[in-house]
Each structure stands twice: as structure tokens, then as C-alpha cells.
């Protein structure tokens, strides 16, 4: 039986790594990958609680989170590809045309 606090700590660490990735990297695709890391950390929390509380609700939630993540990745990547066609770059620092 894996202690719940260990699982939550692992989830927190992975979530933090995702946050740092979003803040530190300039490549839009790597930022997107860090967002996926954050989503997976949340999934891990859900499954950990499902296991701890002997309930299946957590696993159903993870099912829905995965579906939404898949849809989000598809649209996000389409936007990035379109952006690349217009601006020739995926570095978020250089996409600042709306800046005052």
C-alpha cells in the first residue's frame, strides 16, 4: 500500500516542474509540453485519491481529463502551426505584435 502523502508529494513536484517549464522556456512547443506535465500531475492526484478512498470517481475523472487534454493538444498544435506559418517562429518572445 503506497502512502497517500508520497503520491501527493510526487504530484506536487511534477506539477512544479511543469510550472517552471512554462515560465522558463521560450519555445511554444516546450511550454505546451510543460502544460501536459501539469495535467498529468493532476491526473496522478485523482488516481491517488481514488485508490486511497476506495472509490472509482477519481479514475472516471482522469478519463475525462485525458479526453479534454487530447482535444486541447490537437487544437493547440494547429494554432502553433498556423502561427509559425505567419510569423516564421515559435519563440513566444518574438510573437509580440499586439504589444503596445
Amino acid at each position: 500500500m503506497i502512502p497517500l502523502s508520497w503520491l501527493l508529494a510526487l504530484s506536487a513536484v511534477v506539477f512544479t516542474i511543469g510550472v517552471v517549464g512554462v515560465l522558463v522556456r521560450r519555445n511554444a512547443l516546450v511550454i505546451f509540453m510543460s502544460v501536459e506535465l501539469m495535467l498529468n500531475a493532476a491526473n496522478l492526484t485523482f488516481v491517488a485519491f481514488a485508490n486511497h478512498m476506495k472509490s472509482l470517481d477519481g479514475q472516471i475523472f482522469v478519463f475525462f481529463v485525458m479526453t479534454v487534454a487530447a482535444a486541447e493538444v490537437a487544437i493547440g498544435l494547429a494554432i502553433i502551426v498556423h502561427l509559425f506559418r505567419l510569423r516564421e517562429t515559435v519563440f513566444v518572445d518574438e510573437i509580440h505584435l499586439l504589444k503596445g
Partner: protein
Amino acid sequence: MIPLFLGFAALLVATSLLVILHKNPVTSALFLVLAFCSLAGIYLLLHAEFLGMVQIVVYAGAIMVLFLFVIMYLNLQHDVETGVQIAVRRGIGWLAGAAVLLTGATLFGVPAGGGSGWALGPANAVDPAAGAGNVRAIGRELYSRYLFPFELTSVLLLVAMVGVIVIARGGARRGGARRGGPPPAAGPADPPEDR
């Protein structure tokens, strides 16, 4: 059980760190695939077999393939990240991350499950570890209690598909530009259309 969990957890943390630290986006994507696979291993340890396999099929097998496609299509090379501005931004990023981690640590400092002050809502008393029925139990829940969200997600996926096609094709339609293809050949009769 515990050593397996520690192994998977160490792999997960190591590969996640390498995802955000590596300069080449393809290598980051590959490390993320490894992270997802180790997460699937942890799900298997937590008696969530269906989710573990679906994690590999959906995340590692479809989403990351899509990422790799886009990275290769855009022909991205190493990220070049030099300059004082970027170093300052990076420093602030790590500090913010440390702040998030500390917040989490103080919240978890109180042992979960005993006087933690959180209100855990009413749970559905279906034991995920009960016998060889994980898929059956999930199916039963999914189609009875969670039927409405299930149908909504199918509409969501349809909207996403239509949205992707509209966004990805949007620019080429305007201006009447020819969409790819060779210029019309000046040779003899074209081969018959094969449909």
C-alpha cells in the same frame, strides 16, 4: 511494491526535469514520452489498469506522436537561449516554481486523511482494487452515473476535430492560391481519375 513505486517515481521526476532542461525540442518530447510511460507504471501499481493502458495509448501513443509530427514539420533546431534578459527571466521562473512547491508543502504538511481540514466529498463506494473487474467497474460507472459528461466529451471531440481542420486550412483558402500540387502538365491526356 514500494521499491517499484520509488523507481517509477524517480524516473518520472528525472524525465520531467529533462523535458524542461533540454535544448532540443525533439529530445524533450522523447523524455516526455518516457515520463508518461513511467506514470502509466504508477497507475498500474495503484490498481488503475485501464487508465494505465489508456495513458500509453492516448498520451504516449497519440498526443506525443502529434507533438513529434509538428516539431519535425516545423524543422525546429536547438533552442538558442542566451542574453541577460533570458537569464533574469529564467531566474524568476525558478523562484516562482520554488514558491509553488513551498505552498504545496505547507498544505500537505498536515497529514492527509486525519484532521486535515479538507472536506472530501461523498464517494462512490466502488473499490477499484476489487477483483478482476476494473474495466467492468469503470464501464458501469461511466455509462450510468457519468453518462452526461461522457456524451458531452464526444461533442467536445467533434468540435475539436472541426476546429483543427478549420484552423489548419484557414490561411491557404484565402487569396485563391493553389493548394500544393504540381503545375498543370503540358503532356497528353491525363490518366483517368481513380476514385
